[in-house]
């Protein structure tokens, strides 16, 4: 054998940046990091606003590109007791600027900006939102008009937006995504990603099977104990098929019978009383012999109009999805082979050879998908060509791709009902479920509506009426102009809604059972107890949750919340609703 000289690669330790970001690069890799470093985040902060600052902290540390804080308030004594990114000397100074100063210390690479402006004024000129890649809006805003305007503009410009509330022991956030938000790199559990295609083996795999199992019974104990379990399964599948009309075991009972057949092949006249590779094979029977199927997420993608009818303006996602759909149809329901092989008891050389057979097949499937992509590109006149890496990533993760359909954030107004349309039917039963956290979401809507009401009254009254105004600002109006929040929430808007969409096109989901009503009332009372204040722990926790979701949106990796999440800090529970 000719001596092959392998030049060792030049040894290079990690760069300073790789060292600093090591623990996160192991999650979202260099491409995720690059996306993060290109992101421009806008924070529109209101109230005590700690949750907004805590989100930023969790984005600055991993190295987000830049952020801007819009906040016109000055630092009060109350801020010092709850916001970590302020100190005593900040008292009376502009809050956004002081916060930026302390946040900048966390990571000198992040570009930081502050704008001394109220959200109301900012909302008057929403085209300025264009320059940001993601918006964080902390509620409650002063009125519904501001929220509505910003949400509408973000929706129109396809900028992802988070609307966040945090008060006392409770918090809520909703994500408004573009109408189509595809995720290819969903990071599924490795144990669930193994597509070994045992029911549809290809010639190269069968050829290797033949060379390894031809003389199974005459193999030495050592060789017999090192046949990769995957080949053991294929070998016994052939034996099974010979006596079952060429059919693989289909149901649970047949699989159990097949498992026994596999187990009977193990040699037991040794000190262990069995063979590890046969144990592995038997253990894999139930999960490895399923006929090809596709996930509901992928099915939805395949059925979408955009997948079936591609145009010159179609997104890359749809062009590739269309090509994979073609592959799936022309290969009787199988997907391109991902090509990864789990570890198994085997001789090194056999394992490597098997690994190469899987990789080669994955490459040839990819080549087939790529050919379809190229011909589609030509057909619809699309330029420049989609990068090979993007097609490859899609092929590898096809089974787990997700398309999230963004929905606009619901804005609670004092003067008009929310149009729930198709959601009312889903949310109303959920509201009656004991222990549901959905009342928490409605309590935050009530809070928004309450704020809108206060704003309305404030505008009617003369600003000179100081006593009244101050009381309004404190969140409680004793004169009776605006009732306290719990009384407000009890008012007609929440107690007597109708749910019949045929008669009322814009119903509030209602509380049919006294239990649901009590849950809602208690949440409102607890919110009121906090009197607009944030608890640092709940703000920090919510800041962590939102930051995780922001990172998922920016990197387009992992699966994100679709589309509303609430946290109950008393029960220590979260819930997610599609609203």
């Amino acid at each position, binding site marked *: 054998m000719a001596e092959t000289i392998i030049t060792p690669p030049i*040894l*290079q*330790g990690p760069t300073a940046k790789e*060292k*600093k*970001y*090591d*623990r*996160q690069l*192991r*999650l979202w890799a260099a491409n995720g990091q690059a996306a993060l470093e290109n992101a421009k985040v806008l924070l529109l902060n209101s109230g005590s606003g700690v949750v907004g600052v*805590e989100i930023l902290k*969790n984005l600055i*540390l*991993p*190295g987000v590109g830049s952020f801007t804080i819009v906040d016109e308030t000055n630092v*009060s*004594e*109350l801020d*010092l*007791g*709850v916001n*970590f990114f302020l*100190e005593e000397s900040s008292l009376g100074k502009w809050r956004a600027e002081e916060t930026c100063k302390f946040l900048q*210390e966390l990571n000198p690479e992040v570009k930081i900006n502050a704008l001394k402006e109220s959200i109301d004024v900012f909302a008057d000129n929403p085209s300025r939102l264009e320059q940001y890649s993601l918006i964080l809006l902390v509620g409650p805003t002063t009125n519904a008009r501001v929220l509505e305007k910003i949400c509408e503009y973000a929706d129109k410009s396809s900028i992802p937006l988070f609307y966040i509330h945090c008060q006392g022991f409770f918090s809520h956030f909703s994500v408004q995504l573009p109408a189509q938000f595809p995720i290819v790199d969903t990071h599924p559990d490795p144990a669930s990603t193994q597509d070994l295609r045992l029911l549809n083996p290809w010639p190269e795999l069968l050829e290797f099977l033949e060379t390894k199992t031809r003389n199974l019974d005459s193999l030495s104990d050592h060789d017999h104990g*090192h046949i990769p379990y995957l080949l053991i399964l294929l070998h016994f599948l052939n034996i099974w098929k010979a006596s079952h009309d060429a059919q693989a075991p289909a149901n649970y009972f047949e699989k159990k019978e097949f498992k026994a057949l596999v187990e009977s092949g193990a040699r037991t006249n040794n000190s262990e009383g069995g063979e590890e590779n046969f144990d592995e094979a038997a253990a894999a029977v139930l999960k490895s012999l399923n006929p090809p199927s596709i996930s509901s997420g992928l099915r939805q993608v395949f059925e979408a109009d955009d997948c079936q009818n591609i145009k010159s303006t179609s997104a890359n996602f749809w062009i590739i999805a269309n090509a994979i759909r073609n592959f799936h149809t022309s290969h009787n329901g199988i997907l391109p082979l991902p090509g990864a092989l789990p*570890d198994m008891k*085997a*001789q*090194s050389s056999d394992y*490597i050879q098997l690994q190469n057979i899987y990789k080669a097949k994955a490459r040839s499937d990819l080549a087939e998908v790529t050919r379809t992509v190229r011909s589609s590109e030509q057909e619809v006149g699309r330029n420049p060509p989609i990068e090979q890496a993007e097609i490859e990533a899609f092929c590898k993760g096809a089974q787990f791709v997700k398309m999230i359909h963004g929905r606009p954030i619901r804005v609670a107004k004092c003067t008009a009902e929310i149009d729930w349309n198709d959601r009312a039917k889903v949310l109303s039963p959920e509201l009656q479920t004991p222990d549901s956290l959905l009342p928490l979401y409605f309590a935050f809507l009530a809070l928004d509506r309450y704020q809108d009401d206060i704003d309305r009254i404030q505008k009617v009254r003369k600003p000179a009426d100081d006593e009244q105004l*101050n*009381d309004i600002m*404190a969140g*409680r109006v*004793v004169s009776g102009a605006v009732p306290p929040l719990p009384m407000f929430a009890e008012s007609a808007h929440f107690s007597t809604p109708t749910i019949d969409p045929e008669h009322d096109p814009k119903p509030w989901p209602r509380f049919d059972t006294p239990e649901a009503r009590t849950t809602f*009332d*208690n949440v409102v*009372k*607890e919110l009121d*107890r*906090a*009197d607009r*204040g944030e*608890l*640092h*722990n709940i703000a*920090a*926790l919510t*800041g*962590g949750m939102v930051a*995780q979701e922001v*990172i998922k949106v920016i990197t387009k990796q*992992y699966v994100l919340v*679709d589309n509303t999440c609430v946290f109950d800090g*008393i029960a*220590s*529970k*979260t819930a*997610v609703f599609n609203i």
Partner: protein
Amino acid sequence: MVKLPAFLRTIRQDIDKLPRTYLDNILTKPGPASDPDWIPGLETISALESSKVLVIGAGGLGCEILKNLALSGFKDIHVIDMDTIDVSNLNRQFLFREADVGKSKAEVAAAFVEKRVKGVKITPYNGKIQDKDEEYYMQFKMVICGLDSIEARRWINATLVDMVDMEDPESLKPLIDGGTEGFKGQARVILPTMNSCIECQLDMHAPRAAVPLCTLATIPRQPSHCIEWAHIIAWEEHRKGEVLDTDDPEHITWLYQRALARAQEFKIPGVTYSLTQGVVKNIIPAIASTNAIIAASCCSEAFKIATSCNPFLQNYMMYSGDEGVYTYTFETERKEDCPVCGNLARNLTVNPNMTLQEFIDNLGERAEAQLKKPTLRSEEKSLYSQFPQSLREQTAPNLSKKLSELVVDGEEIGVSDPAFTIAFKYKLIFGS
């Protein structure tokens, strides 16, 4: 300044001397879920401020915990950590700067939070939790743990369970524990001897199965097999006697080169410097946002326990952010046969033909035991003892004996490990 409505002013009269905080809103009024017997107001606030609490760990979780406790009204906080600051900490341990690399985590973190939050006192201890005795732990109202070491968790758990004196309610120290991995984590509240302890829950955090030595030595298939080979076999062969320092770049580079050469020999792709580091140091991915979630959850429970303003977690919250947001909050059961808080022996079915050495290896891998250097005794005699050396030499021949030669069917054996203050009791049942 906002002028307060009249009825709020009356509530506040008695606490006018204190600086106003949002915390007062919660602590001066009852809520729908708070205990009807609970009395809000000054007394509760001063109980919170006088609670002395201990934080174990000043790393990713610890930095967050110190910040959160300081902003939750705790005034007297102690923190223990034996580590120094590394550059790879800076992506999440936000109390540290580049210039702090190499300094004590406990000291830098304590000084930072003390300076930032007015009126809080933080006392650091740069060392191991095992350096301290019961008298030290007795001074705290509760212990909040943000550790990445399972050994340290088990040690403090066993210590706190041991400290409980049924006659003295003050001796019961709630242990609040947090842990993270990537986008996932958990928070739990342990009331020693009252509910399920860390040892009861050990099998919920099973260690990854080790690769058999023979695979590393003869049939490597994965890049990690080549790295483990370099780590366990090649180092011992070529640099015997030298202590491997996983933080020394020269050592890691050496292992990487060995692993790479072996991988080339077997044509195994995928050995990289980063993977070498990951395998050798058993690196768990860690990010700021997950630490924020878990630390805040722990501190929120600490706040509720210290003030009784709302019911606290009973007793486990699992958080997963890999796929959407998912939490599972539930009550884990105490185990009567828990080696720490229970008193029954655990039944263990063993093959009587197994050697004592095989039995010991098996104890190391069992999710509920995870003992690396156990000492074993039967009802009558010492079966194998790690210390002192004379006893080890004397008992070493037992290692190759079959269990059936050493104990009888149904005999109870005691197992202990110097790493923990725990003694396991197993009842060995002969089976296959």
